[in-house]
C-alpha cells in the first residue's frame, strides 16, 4: 500500500468517486473507517450520495444514427451495496467488510453509463465491455484512459425533485404506479418522496415499489439485443427496500434519488405480465386467495416435472406445470421454493461456458426478489410473480441453448474428482475449497461441495467459505448480489433439494467469467482491516 497524502474526508471521497478514481476512493473509504472511526453505514450513505446524480440515463435504449437500437446498461452501483449489506451479516467480523469494499471499488466505475457506452466517459463499461481504449486510445497507448480518472465532469440526466403531496395514500400509490408504467419519472419520483415521508406509509410503499419492479420484465431475451431489462427493475426495487431499511428511511434520500426515477425509464416491458395475468384469470380465478404455504408442497415427482419444464421445456410447459401445482392446492412459496431448487440443475449439470452464467443468474436474482416479496408482504398478485420468475429462468436457458455449444469450454465432470474430495478430512476441506474457488476450478470445487454436503450437516461455514472466496473478485457487483440471493434462498427453502442451491452457487462462483484477473481490491481490504486468516 503506497503512502496516502492528506486527510481522508467525505469531501475527498466524493471528489474521488465523481472523478472516477476508484482506487483512491476505496482507500479513502477505508481510511475514514479505520483512521477516523467513521461508521460503515455513514460511509455507505456518503458513497451513495456522491454517485446518485450520475447514475440515471435518459433511456435504456439508444437509437443509433442508422435507426437501429442498442441497449444501455442499468446502474449496478446500488446493486453492489445491496448485496454487500446483505452479505455483511453472513460473513462474520471484519470479513463482512469485504463485500462493502468491493461495492465501493465498483462505484466510481459505474457512473454515467450512457456516456460510457459511447466512449465519452471512463468506467467499467467503457473499459471492458465497449473496449473504448482500443477505439479511442489516449496519447500514451500503454495507459487505458477509460480506466479513469475522468477528463470531464459526469453528466446529470435527471435532477432531484421535490416531494409531491396531497391526496389520499391510495390515490397517490395508484398515481405512482401509473406514472412508473407510463414513464413519467418526475411524477413517480415526487409521489414516492411524498409518501416516504410518513412512516405509516412505508410498508405499503415498499410493497408497491416491489410490485412495480417485478411486473416490468421482458417476455423473452432471445434475439432481442437491448430490448430487455433482465430483471433490473425488480433488482433495483429490492435494493431500495433493503438499503433504506439499513440506512433508515429518514436517512435515505439519495438512495431514493438513485433508484426510483429509473423504475420509470424506457423501455417498460409488460408483455409477460399481461400474458400471466390473462392465463391466471382464465385458469386460476381464485388466485388472490391461494395461501403462501400449504400442507401440499411439491412431491419428488413434481420437482422432477418442474425441473424438466424449466431446464428443458418451453414457456408453455412452464406455465402448464406451475398451473397444475396451484390447481391441486400448492402454496405460493411451495412453488416458488421449488422453482429456485429446480433451476439449480441448470447451473449444476448444464452450464459450462463462463459467459453463459450471466443471464440465468439474473433470473435467479429476480426470483429471489419475488420470493422475498411473497415472504414479507401481502399482495393479491403474488402468485403471478412465481410464473414470471420461472418463465424468466426458462427463457434465459432457452436463449443460451439457441447458441451452438463451444466444445473448447467443456468442463470435466465433477464426479471425476469425487474420490479425491472424499479423501480430504472434513476438518481440512473448507480451506481446500477456498483455494479451488479462487483458482476457478469448477470440477474440483463442485466435487468438494458434493463430498462435504454428504459428510456433514454443517452448512454455515460452507456458505461462508464460498462467499468469502467469491468476494475476492473485483469490478463485479453481480458477485455480491448473487451471493445474497443464494444464501437467502437457501435459508428459506423448504424443498428436499435445498442443498442444490449450494451446489449451484459454488459452480457459479467457481466458473462465472471474471472482470479482472487480479485481487487488488481484496488487498486494499487486507491492508486496512487486517482480517485473521485472510
Amino acid at each position, binding site marked *: 500500500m503506497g503512502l496516502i497524502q492528506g486527510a481522508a474526508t467525505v469531501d475527498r471521497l466524493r471528489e474521488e468517486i465523481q472523478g472516477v478514481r476508484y482506487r483512491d476512493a476505496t482507500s479513502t473509504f477505508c481510511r475514514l473507517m479505520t483512521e477516523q472511526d467513521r461508521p460503515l453505514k455513514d460511509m455507505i450513505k456518503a458513497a451513495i450520495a456522491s454517485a446518485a446524480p450520475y447514475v440515471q440515463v435518459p433511456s435504456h435504449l439508444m437509437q443509433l444514427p442508422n435507426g437501429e437500437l442498442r441497449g444501455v446498461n442499468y446502474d449496478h452501483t446500488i446493486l453492489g451495496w445491496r448485496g454487500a449489506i446483505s452479505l455483511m451479516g453472513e460473513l462474520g467480523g471484519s470479513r463482512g467488510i469485504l463485500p462493502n469494499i468491493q461495492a465501493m471499488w465498483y462505484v466510481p466505475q459505474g457512473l454515467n453509463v450512457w456516456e460510457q457506452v459511447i466512449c465519452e466517459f471512463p468506467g467499467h463499461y467503457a473499459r471492458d465491455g465497449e473496449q473504448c481504449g482500443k477505439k479511442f486510445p489516449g496519447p500514451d497507448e500503454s495507459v487505458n484512459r477509460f480506466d479513469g480518472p475522468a477528463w470531464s465532469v459526469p453528466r446529470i440526466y435527471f435532477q432531484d425533485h421535490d416531494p409531491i403531496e396531497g391526496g389520499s395514500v391510495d390515490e397517490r400509490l395508484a398515481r405512482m404506479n401509473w406514472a412508473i408504467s407510463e414513464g413519467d419519472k418526475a411524477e413517480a419520483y415526487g409521489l414516492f418522496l411524498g409518501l416516504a415521508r410518513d412512516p405509516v406509509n412505508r410498508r405499503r410503499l415498499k410493497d408497491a415499489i416491489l410490485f412495480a419492479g417485478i411486473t416490468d420484465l421482458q417476455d423473452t431475451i432471445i434475439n432481442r439485443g437491448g430490448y430487455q431489462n433482465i430483471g433490473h427493475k425488480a433488482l433495483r426495487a429490492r435494493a431500495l427496500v433493503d438499503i433504506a431499511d439499513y440506512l433508515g428511511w429518514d436517512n435515505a434520500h439519495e438512495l431514493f434519488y438513485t433508484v426510483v426515477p429509473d423504475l420509470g425509464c424506457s423501455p417498460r416491458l409488460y408483455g409477460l405480465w399481461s400474458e400471466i395475468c390473462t392465463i391466471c384469470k382464465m385458469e386460476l380465478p381464485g388466485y388472490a386467495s391461494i395461501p403462501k404455504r400449504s400442507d401440499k408442497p411439491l412431491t419428488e415427482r413434481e420437482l422432477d416435472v418442474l425441473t424438466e419444464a424449466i431446464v428443458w421445456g418451453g414457456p408453455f410447459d412452464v406455465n402448464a406445470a406451475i398451473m397444475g401445482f396451484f390447481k391441486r392446492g400448492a402454496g405460493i412459496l411451495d412453488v416458488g421454493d421449488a422453482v429456485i431448487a429446480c433451476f439449480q440443475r441448470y447451473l449444476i449439470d448444464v452450464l459450462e461456458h463462463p459467459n453463459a452464467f450471466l443471464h440465468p443468474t439474473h433470473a435467479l436474482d429476480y426470483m429471489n426478489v419475488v420470493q422475498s416479496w411473497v415472504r414479507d408482504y401481502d399482495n393479491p398478485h403474488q402468485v403471478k410473480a412465481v410464473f414470471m420468475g420461472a418463465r424468466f429462468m426458462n427463457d434465459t*436457458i432457452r436463449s443460451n*441453448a*439457441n*447458441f*451452438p*455449444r*463451444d*466444445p473448447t469450454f467443456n468442463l470435466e465432470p465433477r464426479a471425476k474428482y469425487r474420490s479425491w474430495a472424499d479423501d480430504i478430512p472434513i476438518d481440512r476441506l473448507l480451506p481446500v475449497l477456498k483455494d479451488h474457488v479462487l483458482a476457478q476450478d469448477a470440477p474440483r470445487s463442485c466435487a468438494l461441495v458434493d463430498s462435504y454436503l454428504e459428510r456433514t450437516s454443517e452448512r454455515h461455514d460452507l456458505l461462508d467459505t464460498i462467499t468469502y472466496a467469491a468476494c475476492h473478485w473485483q469490478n463485479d457487483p453481480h458477485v455480491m448480489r448473487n451471493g445474497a440471493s443464494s444464501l437467502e434462498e437457501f435459508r428459506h427453502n423448504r424443498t428436499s433439494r435445498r442443498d442444490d442451491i449450494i451446489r449451484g452457487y459454488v459452480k457459479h462462483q467457481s466458473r462465472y467469467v471474471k472482470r479482472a484477473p487480479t485481487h487488488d481490491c481484496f488487498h486494499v481490504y487486507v491492508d486496512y482491516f487486517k482480517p485473521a486468516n485472510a
Partner: protein
Amino acid sequence: MSDDQTLAEFWRIRNAAAVTLALTEEQMRRVVQTASVEQLVALFETFSPARSAGPEWTRTFDPLVEHLWAWGDSETIAAVAELFRARGLPWASVANALSPNQGDRLRAATPHPSWARQPAFGLI
C-alpha cells in the same frame, strides 16, 4: 409404475423406441457419409441463432457433431471447419467442434459396445 403395467411392458415400449431410433441412425449414417461440403455447410448454418428453428433445434448440435465424427470423412470435415473458421468469432463454436482435436476426443469418448448396432450417441 401403475398397478396395471409391468416392468416388462415398460421395457418392451422402450425397446420399440430403440429399434425405431436405430433404423433412423442407419439412414443418418448413409447420408452423412455421402454428404458434400456444401450440404454440410448448409446444415450447420441452420444452427445460427438468427436462423435456428429454436433451442430445441440448436440443442441437437452436439449429437450432430458426434454423428459427423463417427461416420464422416476427415477431409470433408476439415474443409467444412475451414470455411466456418474463416467466418470469424460468431461461428467459432462450429469451427471448434469440427477441429481435429475435438474429433479425436469425440471418437475416443463415444463408446461402441460390441453388442450394439451403432455407437452410443447422446440423444439431446
